[in-house]
């Protein structure tokens, strides 16, 4: 059963429409991420759900009831703001306790719950600080703690971890996920960190210019993007514009400039654009390439960059330029080196 539904919603600032006939439905207890380029309307969607924005058209249903006109403070939703929006005149403790005080929770219990959530957010010892004396990441954690502590019906996160370092980010997201699952709080989560979105979400919605292009579980999005935009957005950096496609027994045979590649894929019947991630391509020195290379294309290394985890190569071939990430453990390839590029048939997908 879906907990809430946005039905044909339109939102506009001044005359410019930001969301147009927007639809989104989220099931009870689910965590859904919104992913999309800057300015595509993620914050707008969250604000709409929270009730900060009035839609021009459309409906917002929550537990089957029309919530369009329910005031913000009656919604019992937790919101973590992109700019934190901490109360500058209150200490960290009071900021976090604010929502509980509204709910007339007993003093002892407030203290208890606030300290527990501050602990989770690694903010022990900061209770008496004012926001002006916190670092960026500390502020962000206070904002998260403030939203979590009220155990709301719906949690709305607007890039809650963007100012945290990798470790803390992982810890916090694990905590968020744990609390979310434990309490079964439905959650809408906006983040720019894809790994974060994929690891934390039951479903991911990829947004583009005020529209959801694809809403699926993380693995599906990750493996089977439906459109070129989605593919591009989630890291399929390499695109091949095929001339034609043909169903064969061992997959689809897609042809470009006389070269035919095999694509093993079920769920796309029309797409002519092949997409593949830099990580999924393999590179072999021309003289050391094994025999079993799938969909082999010959090329030349243009640029190589060190990425820590791997080396990144720009490879020029007759069917276009490719970006390839190769395990750094292997000996690096030199600029100008002739190579064989392998496009694994399981990894390449056709998109619309």
């Amino acid at each position, binding site marked *: 059963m879906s907990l809430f539904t946005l039905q044909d919603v339109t939102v506009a600032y001044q005359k410019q429409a930001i969301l147009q006939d927007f639809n989104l439905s989220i099931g009870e207890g689910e965590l859904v991420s919104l992913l999309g380029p800057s300015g595509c309307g993620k914050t707008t969607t969250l604000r709409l759900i929270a009730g*900060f924005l009035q839609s021009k058209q459309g409906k917002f249903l929550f537990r089957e009831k029309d919530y369009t006109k329910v*005031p913000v403070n009656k919604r019992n*939703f937790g919101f973590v703001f992109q700019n934190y929006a901490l*109360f500058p*005149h209150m200490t960290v403790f009071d900021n976090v306790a604010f929502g509980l005080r509204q709910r007339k929770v007993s003093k002892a219990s407030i203290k208890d719950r606030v300290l527990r959530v501050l602990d989770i957010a690694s903010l022990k010892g900061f209770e008496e600080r004012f926001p002006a004396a916190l670092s960026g990441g500390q502020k962000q954690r206070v904002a998260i703690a*403030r939203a979590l502590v009220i155990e709301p019906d719906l949690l709305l996160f607007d890039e809650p971890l963007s100012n945290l370092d990798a470790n803390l980010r992982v810890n916090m997201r694990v905590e968020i996920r744990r609390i979310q699952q434990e309490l079964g709080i439905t959650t809408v989560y906006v983040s720019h960190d894809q790994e974060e979105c994929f690891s934390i979400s039951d479903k991911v919605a990829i947004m583009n210019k005020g529209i959801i292009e694809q809403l699926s579980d993380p693995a599906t999005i990750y493996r089977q993007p439906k459109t070129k935009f989605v593919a591009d957005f989630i890291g399929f950096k390499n695109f091949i514009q095929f001339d034609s496609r043909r169903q064969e027994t061992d997959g689809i045979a897609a042809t470009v400039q006389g070269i035919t590649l095999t694509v093993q894929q079920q769920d796309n019947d029309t797409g002519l654009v092949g997409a593949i991630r830099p990580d999924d391509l393999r590179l072999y020195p021309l003289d050391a390439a094994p025999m079993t290379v799938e969909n082999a294309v010959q090329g030349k290394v243009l640029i190589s960059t060190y990425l820590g985890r791997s080396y990144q190569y720009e490879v020029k071939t007759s069917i276009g330029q490719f970006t390839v990430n190769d395990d750094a453990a292997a000996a690096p390839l030199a600029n100008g080196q002739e190579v064989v590029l392998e496009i694994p048939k399981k990894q390449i997908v056709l998109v619309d």
Partner: protein
Amino acid sequence: MREKHIGLGIFTFLVFVFLLGPLVIISFTSFEQGTVLRFPPESFSLDWYKNIFEVSGFLETFKVSIYLSLAGNLLALLIGIPAAYALNRFDFKGKALLEGIFVSPIIIPGIVLGFTFLRFFITYYQLPIYAGLFIGHTVIMLPFIIRVVSSSLANFDFSIEEAAVSLGASRIGTFFKVVLPNIKSGIIAGVLIAFLESFNNVDISVFMTGPGVSTLPIEMLTYVQNYFDPTIAALSVVLMIITALFMFFVERLLGLSYFTKR
């Protein structure tokens, strides 16, 4: 970036010399023994300070003025803060007109206001003297409250208000718990200015006072129309001291750190 602004510091110092210089002279003259204002004073006495308490009108009207300013301020705050808030928080049709209405009491010459109040409050509305004074003073305080509070709200980040509402606070609760503390300095400034505006008002009070009811400025004005001695200078000094003490105690007792934002 707390650098030392030496030039600005000197400038500010000179401004305060300008502001306070005349007051120093007044303070000196208040200790003169003779019955006319003299500077430099030629003798020393506290007679004129004693006289403040001997002139029966001062103490009485001082209380009237204080009550009037406080009551007027209270009403002006009750009416003014919601209006200032709405004007800054929301978009309105006819906002400019509304803003115009709210400043209008300032732009009408005081004597005309006073006379008009006299005619309408007393003749048409048949208000008792205190009620007329009270309303008249509230009218002139209101624009100060609204404008000064508005200028604070203009720079207020309303997203923290949203945060509070999303945490379950009612709109009114949010206002008191989150908005108010953050525009505290503006409100204090507004209250202060409105208070002084009322406390010093002559134009309106002159018309609205009646038999047995007067305010301190009217009493002082009447006094200087007929006496030339330093009593009023002494009274001015006393008013300054009272103000200073009052501020000091508010600061101490309530721990209100004026004009400081965390």
